[in-house]
């Protein structure tokens, strides 16, 4: 028969021959650029506070940003003297209406919880309503900006963290092809995509990045369908990608399983987790393929917010939790990026310096 002249090799991805030219990492710009390891403000006494936490869909146990928010609360209990009994968590339901969110926040405010933390951009409208009704209550919202004096917006430069894991992926790949699996094609997730692609291109301008989303905007099933997530990831792996980064919520499990199934001793494949350190949250042995996770430190933000409220001044909080305040970052658990840390930190410094600016749109 005649050989086909189109197409890339199918399964296996033994692309040893593919040359992937890589740029050198930016020169480290001195210690000045190192992130402020020191706390944003000294610990205050939060024993008098009653803290309410309104989760987004998924709630506690999502191994993602809801859990991360809760970790911030727990840290406040441990370090700031917050009394566990003075905290309350409530969670949202799928597809619920605006008034349900309003009621939830109002309920917390009415019962005297202050501060109240709304986790997720879905709360922006409802929080605008409720915060106006309760001017004496302190509120915070994660992932969104609400312009009211008693609301603190806790937003994250997810694109910066994603840039670093994108860089790591480009350094790690042997096939010069990497993948991004988004859960739902919404702006929040597109920021992850944007950072990842920029980071990868910064390292290896020729790297091919496969970008796929499980479902389009408005169909939130993409965050909750690991069976389809796994197929998207397998598609990328089969077409030659060897590092896959996911920002797909619950579907991410499917991505890890796909990578774990595809990895072999001769041709290892890697996955990159998101939001929390997923090497710790995903069960072994699947977690062995997780080389790093893009950390979005909702816990840091929540902890710092509670601390700031306890201290009586929320103005010390940063506009955006970015690399410079460790609001985003990457994890090193499992040692998957130990050999890359030096280069990655150089990129990190360059971003903090402003030598590299990361755009949040693809």
């Amino acid at each position, binding site marked *: 028969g005649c050989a086909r002249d189109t197409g890339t090799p199918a399964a296996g991805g033994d692309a040893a021959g593919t040359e992937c030219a890589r740029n050198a990492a930016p020169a480290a710009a001195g210690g000045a650029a190192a992130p402020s390891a020191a706390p944003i403000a000294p610990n205050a006494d939060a024993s008098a506070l009653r803290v309410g936490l309104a989760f987004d869909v998924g709630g506690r146990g999502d191994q993602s940003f809801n859990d991360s928010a809760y970790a911030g609360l727990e840290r406040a209990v441990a370090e700031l003297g917050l009394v566990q009994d003075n905290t309350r968590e409530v969670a949202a339901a799928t597809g619920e209406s605006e008034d349900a969110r309003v*009621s939830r926040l109002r309920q917390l405010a*009415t019962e005297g919880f202050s501060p109240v933390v709304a986790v997720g951009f879905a709360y922006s409208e409802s929080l605008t309503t409720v915060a106006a009704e309760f001017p004496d209550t302190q509120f915070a919202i994660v992932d969104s900006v609400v312009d009211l004096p008693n609301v603190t917006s806790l937003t994250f430069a997810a694109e910066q963290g994603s840039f670093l894991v994108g860089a790591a992926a480009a350094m790690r790949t042997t096939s010069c092809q990497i993948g991004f699996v988004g859960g739902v094609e*919404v*702006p929040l997730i597109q920021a992850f995509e944007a950072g990842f692609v920029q980071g990868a291109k910064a390292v290896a301008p020729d790297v091919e990045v496969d970008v796929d989303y499980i479902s389009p905007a408005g169909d939130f099933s993409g965050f909750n369908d690991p069976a389809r997530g796994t197929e998207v990831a397998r598609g990328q792996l089969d077409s030659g990608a060897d590092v896959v980064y996911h920002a797909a919520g619950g579907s991410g499990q499917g991505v890890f399983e796909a990578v774990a199934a595809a990895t072999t001793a001769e041709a290892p494949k890697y996955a990159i987790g998101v939001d929390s350190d997923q090497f710790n949250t995903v069960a072994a042995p699947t977690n062995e393929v997780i080389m790093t996770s893009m950390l979005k430190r909702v816990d840091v933000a929540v902890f710092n917010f509670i601390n700031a409220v306890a201290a009586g001044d929320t103005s010390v909080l940063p506009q955006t939790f970015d690399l410079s305040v460790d609001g985003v970052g990457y994890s090193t658990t499992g040692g998957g990026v130990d050999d890359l840390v030096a280069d990655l930190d150089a990129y990190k410094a360059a971003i903090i310096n402003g030598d590299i600016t990361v755009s949040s749109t693809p």
Partner: protein
Amino acid sequence: MSRIRSALLPPALAILFAAALCAVALVISGASPLTALGVMIGQVGQGTTAVDIVNSAAIYYIVALAAAIGFQMKLFNIGIEGQYRLAACVAAIVGGLIVLPPVLHTLVIIVVAVLVGAVWAGIPALLKAYRGVSEVISTIMLNAVSLGAIAFLIRPDSFGVLQGNNISTKPIEPSGQFPGLDTGAGTIFGMVVVAVLLGVGYWFLLNRTRFGFELRASGESATAATAGGVNAKRMVIIALVLSGAVAGLAGLPEVLGRDFAYTLTSPQGYGFTGLAVALLGRNHPAGIAFGALLWAFLDKSAIALDNIGVPRDIVLIMQGSVVLSVVVAYEVVRRYELAAEQRRVAAQLRGAPAADKEVVG
């Protein structure tokens, strides 16, 4: 009145049965059913819960009417979900793009929503009438397709606007909004009035108009209706399109009364609720109103269950079991009544002197 009794007895029995079932589930899981009921009822007085119940009930009422129009003809419009969402999205887009004098602006938005709902329901209607495709299957497929259509329309490079991390349509100017009634504890949507009017219109349509008669006749016996001059294909198309048109309105109370735009986080899932509430209310406008209020009460008061550590999902069990038991109860009562009526008729006729033996003519 035995007629009223026969209309009210089944739902009462069903609610009792469902409540008993939930009570058992609660007791097994170590919670007190009475406390649960207590906090749920107490919740009605909290904040804007009462108003939220009314607002939600209005929405449920609209979707349930849409479902009921189909049910009257034994058509199952599972596609209400897609119809109302697409209609709300397109109406919000149009409403945001145009600027018109107050009442007119609102009217245009409403008309657009009705048209989009009708057109989207028209696809399964035509497929059913001319290609014999089961409306159940085609509407299920179209629900998925409408998700894609919404996503396409709301893309920032089509009609969407980025609002922080949310995407929404261009906000509707105040001229297009539907003013509500501020109660002090929340604002009752102006569209509640529209829902009530729809109910009245539905009742009138069904009981007083030729169309309603034909609809019910087709549902009762398609063959007899055809022999009686009812055009079956036409009825299928009109019923489904009308159902879609009503469904198209369901997203508007929130779009015109609170959100003023369609966003990624706009609610979903009303379509299924509509089917359930219509079944609960036995397609009767008063029954549906009751069903919608019950459903909304369960939905909105459930928030209080969080406070006493009872899983909120008990409410879902309540809703599911009440629907199943209500249809069983209606069926049992219906059979019993028909047999009783036949007996009664026979008894009365036996009373008539020698009527049976007489030979006429």
